[in-house]
């Protein structure tokens, strides 16, 4: 529909392009006149842009409450090549508006947080001028993410997909000259981009197959034709869904392409919160949720998705137990929770998956921002402590949990919100995480016992490592001078934390077992949503498991708190070799390095050295030198003597006459 027609359906629907264009406007303003605005101005513009996008999303939600089928707004025709046509069109329906609300809402809070956080961070890293660049990138990310969730066809979704990948690269490598020996951050950014590319390759193949089989890339048309094509060529749909799964494993960090997310923690903490916890990584879950019509046709593919998600959930949870960096624990936790979501949408429990996506956005963002607050506090403490001592040394790592402890007393507000977030993540009722995780577990119980066991084990480990983290960071005595002198963060940093904490506590209301608000909301878009029920036994088991996990953590880490920062982890002795494996993340990176990276580098070196420099350059240079040597040979005949030239002429004459004689 065009802009005019859609105004007839509902006037608010016209506003949908603004979700993309307001952030773009924000970034343009910051880019062009940002320097003159000062830090407060830059942050204000960026946050206002995101707030505008959030306001538009709210208005769209209100409109959808009245016109629940939604609509499609076609802004312009992108390209028409023969039979293939693709438009820049926005799809307004409950699923996309839900994502818009999550992205812009959490994004807004993170923008406000970043004003305070980056103010400290750019000074800690020594480049105050880079403040503006951060907010430009953040707005760019919001814009691309909006393109992704509001698109009406797979190609525009892919544009957003790639765009958020780009912003992820830019933001991970924000401090590109810092990190271990000056290149670690840049390498992490590169790793994220390359691994995502592998996933994108899968998604591209899926797009090609989609066009080949369906003749179009538009959502509505494809989902209408899906049953017919599935009956005609089931192998095609299977291939499409499996290749899409490859893209999902890349973007949403599932097995085997999850390795970029822990390294991505090299970016500033707001980046980790926004992109790698709340929004970008959920793009894969959104894709599967959107394409339910395709997955429903191929139960085998659904199984694959389910198992990939469940395996990832368990695998990542085990690794999180052995990590010492506060952000790495949260990173592996994200991977694990994404596994929960992917399992859910793979099983067909789309509502459960989207519900968990929303609540996870709340408390994971809260946890990351809280971790950022902790890190800020410890950095301040370090600067403080070393002002009295000698000049600070670089081996101090503000993110290492072994150097923290007892921060409960020094940063009380951060402690409370972090506690709430951790409990929500662990799945303690009546916080938000309990309801969403419980829905997934119920669905898993009905679908497959093996999956249910795997997910429950992952939930147990989740509670355990969050308890471990809480106890190591906030309880006990400070284990380093920095922690002793840590201070609470400013209001600009703590206020968004409070809002997110409230959302984490009360977010469960979105889909309480009795009211099922989210479910009815999403029903309009997703056909065939299985209604979720509340099974008391499953709920009690999950609550019990979570409490057990926390209790175990207290047993190991709480009763005799660690008192020194180089004391070995209490789990090391009982688990021994297993703990070493967990600490080293099952050596997955090293495995990939040996199997993939090293042979590939060898091939690249071979191609560059032997083939490119040796053969091709040799060929080209050889031709040049051949011409040169030929020229030098013939140069000897240019003697400059008139008489030898005359000789040559006479030779020619004699030859011609010979020919004439013999003819």
């Amino acid at each position, binding site marked *: 529909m065009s802009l005019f027609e859609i105004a007839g359906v509902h006037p608010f629907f016209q506003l949908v392009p603004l979700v993309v264009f307001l952030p773009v406007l924000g970034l343009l303003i910051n880019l062009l006149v940002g320097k003159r605005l000062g830090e407060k101005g830059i942050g204000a513009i960026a946050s206002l842009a995101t707030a505008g996008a959030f306001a538009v999303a709210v208005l769209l939600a209100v409109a959808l409450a009245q016109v629940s089928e939604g609509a499609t707004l076609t802004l312009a025709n992108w390209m028409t090549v023969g039979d293939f046509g693709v438009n820049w069109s926005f799809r307004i329906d409950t699923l996309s508006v839900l994502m818009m609300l999550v992205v812009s809402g959490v994004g807004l809070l993170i923008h406000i947080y970043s004003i305070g956080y980056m103010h400290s961070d750019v000074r800690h890293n020594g480049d105050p001028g880079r403040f503006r660049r951060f907010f430009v990138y953040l707005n760019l990310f919001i814009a691309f993410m909006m393109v992704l969730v509001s698109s009406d066809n797979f190609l525009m979704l892919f544009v957003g997909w790639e765009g958020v990948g780009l912003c992820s690269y830019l933001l991970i490598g924000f401090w590109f000259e810092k990190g271990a020996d000056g290149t670690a951050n840049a390498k992490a950014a590169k790793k994220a981009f390359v691994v995502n590319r592998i996933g994108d390759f899968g998604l591209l193949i899926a797009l090609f197959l989609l066009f080949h089989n369906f003749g179009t890339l538009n959502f509505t048309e494809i989902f209408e034709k899906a049953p017919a094509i599935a009956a005609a060529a089931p192998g095609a749909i299977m291939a499409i869904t499996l290749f899409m799964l490859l893209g999902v494993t890349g973007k949403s960090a599932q097995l085997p392409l999850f390795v970029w997310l822990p390294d991505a923690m090299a970016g500033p903490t707001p980046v980790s919160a926004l992109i790698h916890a709340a929004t970008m990584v959920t793009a894969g879950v959104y894709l599967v949720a959107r394409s339910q019509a395709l997955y429903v046709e191929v139960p085998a593919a659904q199984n694959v998705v389910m198992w990939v998600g469940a395996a990832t959930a368990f695998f990542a949870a085990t690794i999180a137990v052995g990590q010492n960096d506060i952000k790495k624990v949260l990173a592996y936790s994200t991977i694990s929770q994404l596994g929960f979501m992917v399992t859910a949408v793979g099983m067909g429990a789309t509502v459960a998956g989207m519900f968990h996506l929303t609540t996870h956005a709340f408390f994971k963002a809260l946890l990351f921002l809280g971790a950022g607050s902790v890190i800020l506090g410890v950095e301040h403490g370090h600067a403080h402590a070393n002002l009295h001592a000698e000049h600070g040394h670089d081996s101090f790592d503000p993110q290492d949990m072994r150097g923290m402890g007892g921060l409960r007393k020094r940063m009380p507000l951060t402690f409370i919100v972090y506690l709430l977030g951790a409990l929500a993540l662990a799945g303690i009722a009546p916080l938000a995480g309990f309801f969403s995780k419980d829905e997934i577990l119920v669905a898993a119980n009905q679908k497959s016992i093996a999956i249910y066991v795997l997910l429950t084990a992952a939930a147990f480990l989740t509670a355990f490592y969050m308890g471990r983290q809480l106890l190591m960071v906030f309880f006990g005595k400070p284990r380093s001078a920095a922690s002793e002198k840590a201070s609470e963060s400013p209001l600009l940093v703590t206020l968004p934390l409070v809002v997110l904490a409230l959302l984490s506590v009360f977010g469960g209301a979105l889909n309480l077992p009795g009211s099922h608000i989210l479910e009815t909301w999403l029903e309009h878009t997703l056909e065939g949503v299985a209604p979720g029920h509340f099974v008391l036994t499953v709920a009690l088991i999950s609550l019990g498991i979570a409490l057990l996990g926390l209790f175990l953590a207290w047993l190991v880490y709480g009763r005799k708190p660690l008192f020194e920062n180089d004391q070995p982890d209490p789990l090391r002795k009982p688990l021994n070799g297993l703990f070493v494996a967990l600490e080293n993340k099952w050596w997955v990176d090293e495995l990939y390095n040996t199997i993939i990276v090293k042979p590939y580098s060898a091939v690249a070196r071979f191609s560059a050295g032997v083939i490119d420099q040796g053969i091709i350059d040799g060929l080209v240079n050889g031709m040049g030198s051949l011409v040169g040597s030929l020229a030098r040979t013939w*140069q000897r005949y*240019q*003697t*400059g*003597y*008139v*008489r030898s030239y*005359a*000789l040559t002429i*006479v030779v020619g004459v004699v030859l011609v006459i010979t020919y004439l004689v013999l003819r």
Partner: protein
Amino acid sequence: MPMSYYIGLSIIMFSMGILGVLLRRNPLIVFMSLELMFNSANLLFVAFSAYHHVLDGQLFVFFVMTTAAAEVAVGLALIVAIFKSKRTIDLDQMSSLKG
């Protein structure tokens, strides 16, 4: 006299002219050898003109002579000009176009 006499004489004169051009380093001798070659051609022209009773051959000799005269004039002027700068007329010294 049979034609072979004139043809043979012409051939011998021409070949001697070639020898002179290739072997001598004095450009004046070279020019004179060239005149020898011209002459051999003229002889042949006149002989065939008499053989066929056609006057055009002799006319051609006329033209050859005038052209040879013009060429000698310019050529000798060139030799004089070169002598003015190089102070020698050895042909082998004129090799600055050596590549």
